[in-house]
Every structure is written in C-alpha cells, then in structure tokens.
C-alpha cells in the first residue's frame, strides 16, 4: 500500500497535507488520531505519531488537549506555498530530463500541455479555491 524507500512517517505527513491541500480535510476540522491512522494503514502507532507531530511542528496541525488534533487555519495556504516552491524541482526537472532524452523541444512540450483534451488545463478549472492560484 505505502511505497518502500520513503520513511513511513513522511508518507503519512504527505498524505495528510495532500488531503488539506485538495480540501478533503478542511481547516478547523479534526484529523484522525494516531491510533486510527495506525489501524487504517496497518503501521506502528509510533510511526503514525511521528508523521502527525511533524505537521504539528510545521504549524499545520495543532493539538487541543483532550479533544484531538486539528487543522490550523491558514494551513492550506501555507502548504500550497511550500509545494509551489518544490514544484519545479519535483515535476518540471524530471519532465524536462525525459523530454530531452526523447528530443522533444520546449515548444512541443508546451503544445502537449496545452492540448485541448487535457482537462486539467482548462482555465479557471482549479480544484475548488482558485483564490490560491
């Protein structure tokens, strides 16, 4: 289910942040407990806790004593900012490397991205919350 290589706690943190970014997990809402995560992903609770605590340290989640863990308001924007900073390195660089290998020039690449059947591209069709764009 989870991939090898990346430490599990990072994967847990990554999934939670993805849920926040795409709006599955709203700001102010409660996130599942460590034990619920552990049971769901069938992983050690300490590992799940490590992933959740990482997001607490980053100011994405906050612990409310006795109630649970919640998504901080402003978390989504913060995550989007972080991810944009990593976007070029994570997605553009490998894309260009493969394009180069296949002798696809940048113009051809842009045409491919602009292809009308590429639904992701349609202007203003961002997943809810285009204020972030």
């Amino acid at each position: 289910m989870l991939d090898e290589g990346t430490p599990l706690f990072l994967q847990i943190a990554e999934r939670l942040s993805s849920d926040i970014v795409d709006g599955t997990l709203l700001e102010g809402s409660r996130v599942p407990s460590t034990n619920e995560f552990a049971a769901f992903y069938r992983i050690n609770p300490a590992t799940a806790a490590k992933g959740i605590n990482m997001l607490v340290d980053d100011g994405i989640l906050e612990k409310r004593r006795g109630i649970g863990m919640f998504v901080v308001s402003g978390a989504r924007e913060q995550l989007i900012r972080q991810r944009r900073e990593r976007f070029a390195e994570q997605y553009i660089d490998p894309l260009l490397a493969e394009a180069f290998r296949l002798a696809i020039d940048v113009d051809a690449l842009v045409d491919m991205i602009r292809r009308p059947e590429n639904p992701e591209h349609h202007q203003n069709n961002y997943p809810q919350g285009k204020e972030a764009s």
Partner: protein
Amino acid sequence: MTLTVQVDHLTRRYRGQLALDDVSCELQADTVTGLLGRNGAGKSTLMRILNGQEFPTSGTVLVHGENPLENDAVLSRMVFVKESQVYPDIKVKRVLEAASWFYPNWDADLAAQLMDDFELPTNRAVKKLSRGMHSAVGIVLGLSARAAITLFDEPYLGLDAVARQIFYDRLLADYAEHPRTILLSTHLIDEVADLLENVLVIDRGRIVVDAAADDLRGRAVTVSGAKSAVDAFTAARKVWHRTGIGSLASATVGGPLDDLARTRARDLGLEVAPVSLQELVIRSAQLGPEHRPERISA
C-alpha cells in the same frame, strides 16, 4: 526512553557450536521490535535466554534491570509464545483459565474476543487442534496476557493469510491501547515490516542490523540500466549485490542516495528503486562477514 531489556556481550555455546556470538542490543520500553534472521541464526536462543529458560555461556541479560533467571518478579511480567509450545493435555478453555491465574494483567474479554476472531473451539482438547489452531491459541495467550514484555517467536506456523492478518490487526490495536514492549521473530518480513518500529537482524549468532525501521527504508537502493551506466555509477560505491543480463545490469548499493547521486543516476539513465526490508535482510545475511557493510545502526 526507558530500557526494558539490555543484552550485553551475550554468548551462548552449545558444545562446539556458537549459537550467540557476543550479542549486545537493547529494547526500549513500549516499542515493537522485529527479530529477523534465517533458521538457526540464533533468534530463538536469544528469546529463551531473555525469558530465563536458558543460561548464557557468558555475558549478561537484564530485563527491567534484573536477571531473568528464576526471577518471578521479571517472569510474571513477560509472556513468551513460541512455535513449538507444548500444552498439557487439557481443553482450550482450561489453558486460558490457567493463563489467567499466571498473568496479572490477563484480559479475559480480549481472550474471548480473540477466540472468536480465530474461530477457536474452547471445548476441544488442545491435542486435537489443527496446526494453525494450535498457533492461534498461542497468539490468544500472548496478546491477552498483556505482559509488559511480549515475546513472539515465529508464532504463526500453519496460520493462513487471513488469520495472520487478524493477528497483525489485533496486535496493533491492543498495542495502541496498551503499549508494551514486543519482540517478534518472523520469516514473513514483508508482512510485518510496517508494524515494526525497530529491527534487529541476527545472522550466525551475531547482530548485523540494529536500527529504527524508518531508517532502514532507503538504506539500500537498486540501480538498474545499461551495464556501462551501472558500472560508472557503482565505481566508487560498495556494491551489495549485482546481477546482469546481456547489456543490462542491476546493482544494490548502500543508500540513501543524496540529491547529487540521484541526479547522477538520472543523468546516466538509471532506474533507482528502493530495497524492501525483506531484501535488505536477505542481503545482510548473504554477504559474508568479511564483505558485510559495517553493522547498520540507527
């Protein structure tokens, strides 16, 4: 963190044979540790010594700071489930009853629940159980005892995949509610990899890996691609394992790769794939002691 078990320069020799060779390791309180290794590597010997069922030839073992040998204070807080457990010739429910007298934290509700989960007949004599059911009884005991230290030595001989999954799920759930120190030895490494917080790999009586499970992910990677590219990439690296076919090659090298190495691999057109815990264990056991990467520790 609190240390629950401390093993210091432990050696166990059977006649001429060295079962444990200068083993030192620790178990932190309330963690799940996997004890992995091949048959005859010394896993069971280590567990028996921890449980006071066997004497060390030399070295010391401290459990909760005390020697476990004939020490009731230590042993009543420990449960040991082994593959070859022999029970007296009584019914399953009598086995549970006896266990409830022995283990101070025994949870009868949990035992009943587990009996149900594994569909175990309480009224049948233990002797008449199938191999898998016999193993399941051991698991019921091991979990329901809720002992501060729980040792599972290959607990699931004959258990089918469904029953094993039940075991993992119940173990995780009860551990989350009631944290305790669990040491689990197994051959089914891929199945338990995600349950483990720490990993001990033992080979020919020696500990060869002692690390946090998370640190082991990415500890080795396999690069594959054109033979010349693999050669170029591995020139200055220690190669754990190498295979090839025609002009293609694949090599397992120590990781994790830093950004520079990843970029280089990409520039050379190499595929980089992480190595699973199971493969890592196999590699550490296959390499002779002389080529083995220095003991991996966290």
